[in-house]
């Protein structure tokens, strides 16, 4: 395994370089082959590593070369393969592969076809590097690289001002989180003298590290995770990121990159487990985000925005699980979510594709018979997201709620349950508005509705199977394959927290039944409002006008930022421009010029242009020199 791990990220990197250099002139419309093949190779290797790492108690660390070597600051360029990395590798490369194949159909005929696949490959490389990194600095490198790819791909349609602005927003908001993450990495080095996972976790396990330092490290790392995983209050960039092409939304802004924060916290489980305060913060932020984003999701009209808020909300669930030390379950939900959210996005992309680019759900409806393959796969995704037995989302979400209950955080549990209800409601609101009722698109669009090509349908079907079956990897309690697979990684963290495997008890079954009933209620309510009595949503909107407006405007978070942080920055920058830049910097430059101009004016009469005057000067000078030499 040591011999080939490095190939997992490098294959997409090679594909990126070749596609970028030769794409425009030479490869052009067949730019998809190389990235797809490279990603398939990475997937195969991830699978091989996954099989080999099974049951290995120790992580496999491969030092490729020494990256930094400055005094005691030693950072190797090392890749670490353990159970967590291998699961992440499989998810990332597998979902990437499917989405690359889907993109072949979806992006067909786009002018930047090669550019799209080049950046997608670069993203694949960065994300695989992120999950395979063997120390925090390399993780940080991958972390920034995925952010960069995200920026490129959100702004893929760069001629659209909204897309360019959304890319910038994503980048800047992430910078806030990454600032914390960067400080956290530095603090780790200061505290432990090393950045290697193995070394750091060993020292934390031994103990003797100050509580304050650990708390600061944990919170700073979590700050980075909040930015990348779009947790409140840094969630604002993710919905805007939907300006990118739909495969990008599916891959980067739903399935993989945004889960990097969850991965980071799970990876640092030992640190978080040692400071209960930090865990509580993670849990509170996660739980709040879960319900906050779900509520916003109710009122969105853009199909991709609904899914974006849903993603934020589901990421909140993952952090809720992390907050009670259910590391493996958070990763489990990450995995199932990758399946069904990628499916939902790709399905939404298929809908948008069939309607010639329409994203507003008010202009959809009645598509069930027109695009059946998309319909059935999308419903599978919706059922998984809502948490209906036996779809993947049921198992993972229920595991989360179960572990929150067992930890005694009943408030988290209750909020999570309400969020589950809302999730089911807005998900099926989306399904019903899109596929049921009367068609609301204009006639010309209506005539051109067509089912998507096979390259798009096949990934949908594969993902739908995943959304149906992936849940059986993580059955609750001792039945969970995934949980016991990940045990070597999270063993020491669980030991610190005193969490043990539990057998299924009556409460678990009760909780499961409750959550399914709640989800069913959400679906029924959606059905009632959007199929049965289609006048109800408008009525409710009028009755609850003030509430509706606040929610529709996403609780005015963007406006709040615009009025405070952005305003302050812009006004402050303008002040600096007017006062510092123009007055001091420009003043210094102009002042220098002015000084010499004045000096020239003073001195110019000396240059009379008359040879005799100069000669007189020479004589006087000579006289002085001779006088000095001779008489002094």
């Amino acid at each position, binding site marked *: 395994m040591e011999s080939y791990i490095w190939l997992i990220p490098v294959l997409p990197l090679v594909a990126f370089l070749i596609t970028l250099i030769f794409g425009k002139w030479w490869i052009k419309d067949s730019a998809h082959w190389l990235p797809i093949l490279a990603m398939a190779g990475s997937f195969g290797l991830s699978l091989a590593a996954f099989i080999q790492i099974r049951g290995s108690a120790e992580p496999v660390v491969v030092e490729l070369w020494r990256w930094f070597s400055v005094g005691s600051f030693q950072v190797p360029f090392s890749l670490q393969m353990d159970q967590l990395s291998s699961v992440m590798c499989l998810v990332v490369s597998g979902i990437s592969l499917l989405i690359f194949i889907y993109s072949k159909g979806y992006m067909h005929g786009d002018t930047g076809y090669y550019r799209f696949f080049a950046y997608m490959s670069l993203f694949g490389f960065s994300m695989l590097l992120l999950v395979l990194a063997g120390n925090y600095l390399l993780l940080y490198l991958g972390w920034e690289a995925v952010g960069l790819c995200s920026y490129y791909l959100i702004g893929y349609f760069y001629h659209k001002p909204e897309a360019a602005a959304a890319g910038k927003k994503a980048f800047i908001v992430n910078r806030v989180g990454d600032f914390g993450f960067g400080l956290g990495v530095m603090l780790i080095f200061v505290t432990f003298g090393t950045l290697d996972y193995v070394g750091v976790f060993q020292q934390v396990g031994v103990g003797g590290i100050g509580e304050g330092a650990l708390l600061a490290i944990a919170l700073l790392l979590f700050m980075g995770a909040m930015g990348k995983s779009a947790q409140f209050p840094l969630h604002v960039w993710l919905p805007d990121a939907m300006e990118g092409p739909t495969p990008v939304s599916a891959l980067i802004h739903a399935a993989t990159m945004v889960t990097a924060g969850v991965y980071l916290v799970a990876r640092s489980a030992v640190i978080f487990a040692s400071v209960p305060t930090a865990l509580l913060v993670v849990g509170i932020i996660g739980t709040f985000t879960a319900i906050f984003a779900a509520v916003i999701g109710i009122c969105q009209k853009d199909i991709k925005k609904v899914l974006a808020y849903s993603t934020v909300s589901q990421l909140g669930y993952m952090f809720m699980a992390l907050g009670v030390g259910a590391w493996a379950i958070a990763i489990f939900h990450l995995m199932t979510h990758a399946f069904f959210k990628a499916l939902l996005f790709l399905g939404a992309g298929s809908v948008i594709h069939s309607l010639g680019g329409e994203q507003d759900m008010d202009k959809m409806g009645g598509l069930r018979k027109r695009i059946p393959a998309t319909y059935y796969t999308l419903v599978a995704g919706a059922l998984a997201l809502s948490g209906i037995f036996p779809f993947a989302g049921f198992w993972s979400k229920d595991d989360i709620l179960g572990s929150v209950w067992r930890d005694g955080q009943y408030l988290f549990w209750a909020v999570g349950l309400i969020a589950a209800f809302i999730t089911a409601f807005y998900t099926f609101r989306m399904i019903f508005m899109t596929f049921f009722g009367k068609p609301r698109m204009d006639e010309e669009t209506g005539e051109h509705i067509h089912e998507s090509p096979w390259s798009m349908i096949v990934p949908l079907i594969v993902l739908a199977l995943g959304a149906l079956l992936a849940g059986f990897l993580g059955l609750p309690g001792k039945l969970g394959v995934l949980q016991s697979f990940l045990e070597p990684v999270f063993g020491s963290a669980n030991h610190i927290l005193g969490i043990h495997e539990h057998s299924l008890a009556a409460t678990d079954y009760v909780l499961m039944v409750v959550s399914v009933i709640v989800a069913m209620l959400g679906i029924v309510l959606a059905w009632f409002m959007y199929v049965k009595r289609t006048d109800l949503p408008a009525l409710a909107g009028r009755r609850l006008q003030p509430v509706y407006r606040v929610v529709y405007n996403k609780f005015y978070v963007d406006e709040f930022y615009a009025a405070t942080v952005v305003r302050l920055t812009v006004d402050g920058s303008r002040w600096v421009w007017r006062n510092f830049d123009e007055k001091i910097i420009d003043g210094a430059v102009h002042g220098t010029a002015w000084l010499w101009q004045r000096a020239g004016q003073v001195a110019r009469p*000396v*240059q*009379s*242009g*008359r*040879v*005799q005057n100069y000669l*007189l000067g020479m004589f006087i000078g000579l006289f002085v020199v001779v006088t000095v030499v001779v008489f002094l």
Partner: protein
Amino acid sequence: MGGTPADMAIPVDWYLYLSAALFIVGAAGMLIRRNLFIVLFSLELMLNAVNINLVGFSRFHENLAGQNFVLFVMAIAAAEAAVGLAIATALFRNRQTLMVDLFDRMKG
């Protein structure tokens, strides 16, 4: 030639007075006269003042090197006069005057 400085008919300081007087006349002429030709003549005066100086000391020290220099200076002065006069001719063609104080186009 011959004899010692002691029995020299004319003492060396006389040469120096003459040379200094010539030099001052030349320098004054260069500085105050307006006509370019006069300025050039004044220059010749100054050169020849130096020549007298050299010859005087050459005799005083009984060393012919000084007179060597004089020959050089005379050759150079001839060349300089040729160039100077050529410039004067060209100037006159352009400006129809040889008054030096009118040539102040390089005024800053």
